[in-house]
């Protein structure tokens, strides 16, 4: 199987290489079920094709109408599948209980999901950094290897779902409550993290990277774990990504091109609004737009997906930092092309 399905981008057939303690269990169960499926499917198809051929309508041949019922056979093909699914259920449930029962003495990380960014807060209060891979700036969660990790997850807006394929672990992030998950890391490396519950326009961009490192490197990373910098411009740049602004607003030479307007070249100008009026792009406009986004929508953005208010989620000095950042983009070129 693997050698048929493996291709030039993935040296494996089905699952990416496992990096948590759940992986062997899950992969074993999958392989077991796969073989069960093959053992059912192949004979079914062979029988179907053989019957098609052997009993085909042809001159001089007439089938027998006798075989309409065979109690022992019917009992057999009811009982055997039943026994098999009981086994599958059992293995699945036992594995699930492992995933659901969180052990003591875990390394805890607070996970916050919002449209369309993941943010992570470590036990010492430090927050995640970002790492540019290709053209995309991914939030990066650093974790120690060979440790039980517990995630305490909440959503600030809609449903999201936290999924790391290499860890075979997934859990929805539900607004209005905390959901928990845990896993035991077994291998250092960088792994993909996806949002797997549809959450709107840029759902498919709501990805992050998880880097599993040695204990020492983890400690170093924790020390460096980002506290917001003093310098307002640097702080603004960081907040632009951490607060999720970058997932809708293009700024400088990064961020998503929409659904919101770009910050580039806006500061100090008079910008047209949906209502037909214009407004000066200044401190007050920025502040109002962060705290009460629908109040003055830019022209052309009336139908865009609405932005949630940041009231209660952002401090005044953080708004100041973002303003500093936008000021610095006064003369930045608008994004051209797609």
């Amino acid at each position, binding site marked *: 199987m693997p050698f048929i399905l493996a291709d030039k981008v993935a040296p494996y057939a089905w699952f990416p290489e496992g990096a948590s303690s759940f992986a062997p269990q899950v992969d074993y*169960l999958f392989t077991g079920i796969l073989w069960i499926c093959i053992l059912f499917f192949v004979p079914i198809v062979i029988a179907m094709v053989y019957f*098609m051929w052997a009993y085909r309508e042809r001159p001089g041949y007439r089938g027998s109408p006798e075989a309409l019922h065979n109690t022992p*056979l019917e009992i057999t093909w009811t009982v055997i599948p039943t026994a098999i699914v009981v086994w599958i259920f059992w293995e699945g449930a036992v594995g699930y209980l492992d*995933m659901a029962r969180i052990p003591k003495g875990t390394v805890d990380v607070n996970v916050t999901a919002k449209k369309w960014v993941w943010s992570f807060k470590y036990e010492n209060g430090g927050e995640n950094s970002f790492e540019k891979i290709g053209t995309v700036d991914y939030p990066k969660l650093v974790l120690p290897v060979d440790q039980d990790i517990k995630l305490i997850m909440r959503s600030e807006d809609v449903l999201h779902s936290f999924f790391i394929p290499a860890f075979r672990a997934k859990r929805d992030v539900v607004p209005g409550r905390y959901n928990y998950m845990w896993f035991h890391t077994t291998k250092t490396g960088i792994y993909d993290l996806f949002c797997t519950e549809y959450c*709107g326009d840029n759902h*498919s961009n709501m990805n992050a990277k998880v880097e599993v490192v040695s204990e020492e490197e983890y400690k170093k990373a924790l020390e460096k774990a980002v506290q917001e910098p003093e310098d307002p411009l640097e702080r603004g740049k960081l907040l632009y990504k951490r607060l999720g602004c970058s997932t809708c607003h293009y700024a400088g030479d990064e961020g998503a091109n929409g659904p919101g307007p770009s910050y580039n070249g806006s500061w100090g100008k008079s910008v047209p609004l949906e209502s037909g009026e214009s407004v000066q792009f200044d401190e007050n406009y920025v502040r109002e737009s962060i705290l009460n986004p629908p109040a003055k929508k830019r022209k052309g953005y009336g139908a865009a997906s609405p932005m949630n208010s940041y009231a209660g989620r952002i401090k005044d000095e953080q708004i100041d930092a973002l303003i500093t950042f936008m000021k610095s983009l006064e003369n930045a070129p608008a994004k051209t092309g797609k």
Partner: protein
Amino acid sequence: MSVADRPIVSPASGEGAAYPEHHFLNHTSGFLSWALTLDHKRIGLMYLVGVMSSFALGGMFALMIRLHLWNFKDGWLSNQTYNQVFTLHGAIMVFLFIIPSIPAALGNFLLPIMLGTKDVAFPRLNLGSFYLWVTGLVLFLTALSITGLDTGWTFYTPYSIETQKGGAVLAATFGVFVLGFSSIFTGLNFIVTINTMRPPGMTWFRMPLFLWATYATSIIQVLATPVLGITVLLLSAERLLGIGIFDPKLNGDPVTFQHFFWFYSHPAVYIMILPAMGIISELMSVHCHKGIFGYRMIAYSSVAIALFGFLVWGHHMFTSGMADVTTIVFSALTFTVSIPSAIKVFNWLGTMYQGTVSLNTPMLYALAFIFLFTIGGLTGLPLGALALDMHMHDTYFVVAHFHYVMMGGTLVAFLGGLFHWWPKMTGKMFNDNVGMISAAIVFVGFNLTFLPQFVLGTRGMPRRYATYLEEFQDLHRLSTIGSLTLGIGLLVALLVLLHSLFYGRRAPTNPWGGATLEWVCSSPPPHDNFATAPTVGDPYDFNGIEYDAKQGGYVKKA
């Protein structure tokens, strides 16, 4: 089996009768004779046109999705448009095509004829259902196209509450509400008809299996659809009155919405697949010219699926953070559904054993169904296993799994049934060779589209992604090529059917050699179906049904 038990030919439609000059299609004419008809056959045909148009629309959106995903980023749609397109695809296919396809179109046409009656129990209610369906369709399509709804067909809260697209969600869900009533009335009508109007001699266990499947489906429609109505009302109440039910901002719980939604929508999956299983039971038996193997087991398994289908909705929510006990119980219940489904597959194979297998278009679709449905069913096993589902939930594995069941299953069975009963409905034979080619193209295209998606899913590709990682691109391209092939196959099938309307030869009364009552009626049937209620025996007794070259069809030799 004694001679007296065999189907007795009704005087109005003698067996082997030539093409009738007078039948339901030319019984009356004019627009109003169709628009105000109480004839279940005409209502069935109107549904058929409606659901097939919906399918064409939904299919175009599917192709838009696949073409967009050709490149891993910078596809030809914006993210927002992509989200609207997959919402349109899902919502149209589920609510406007699959749910009404077999019960409302084929079921309406066949149910009374198979029962040897003139019509369903409540013909006016039947027409009412049709107009409710049309109203729902108009409301729903208007809402979808004007408001740019982008919630997915599941309307999950709180996203569906937050997205403020001109009340898009309210308008669309109101459409669903109306469509639901159409479904309920049709189900009710069928239940009463089957309970009260069976002809003399047709005991429960002498009913054609298509009727068993339709009966089981109708029970689900009547019992589950109201919950959808309640959900929609709660959603409206929350939105209009600000009562906190599902919205966490008002102290509601979004997971409650999922419970409500899937309490209907999971049984709805069986509204989609059960009638398809009924069709396959008919097709396998008729085209193997042999009684169905294990009749009672198939009949019981339909009912079992309908009952178990009510208890498994939680498997859509394994990762939502339900209590562990609930999750495990739902997993156990989920596996119960697999057994009756497996039994059916074995019985269909048993039907072929020692039969006389005719290979023709409907039979090829039926065989394709068995192949595809088996894959669809078996791939449900890893999804039901909890530990595995934690990995596969909401990935392309799920997408492939339910397309194998819904499309490889229901759509292929629908096409098989359509070809099977097409001569009966229209009085015209189609070109069987080109029909078989369409079945082959559909089969190849379908597998090419959805097999790669299983691999995408296990490798971790999430659903509903407008852009994706570059490493998934090759498999996505395979899938896109498959979808275009599939589209061509379906187009060929449509052309074969349309061609037959104009150039097809006249259909004999019994082109395939069936033993159920619809094959006693002329093709197309007369307005009243049967002059007097026929007495019936075993619907799968093929003794004495012989091919007659002069007629081009089968006749019963006593």
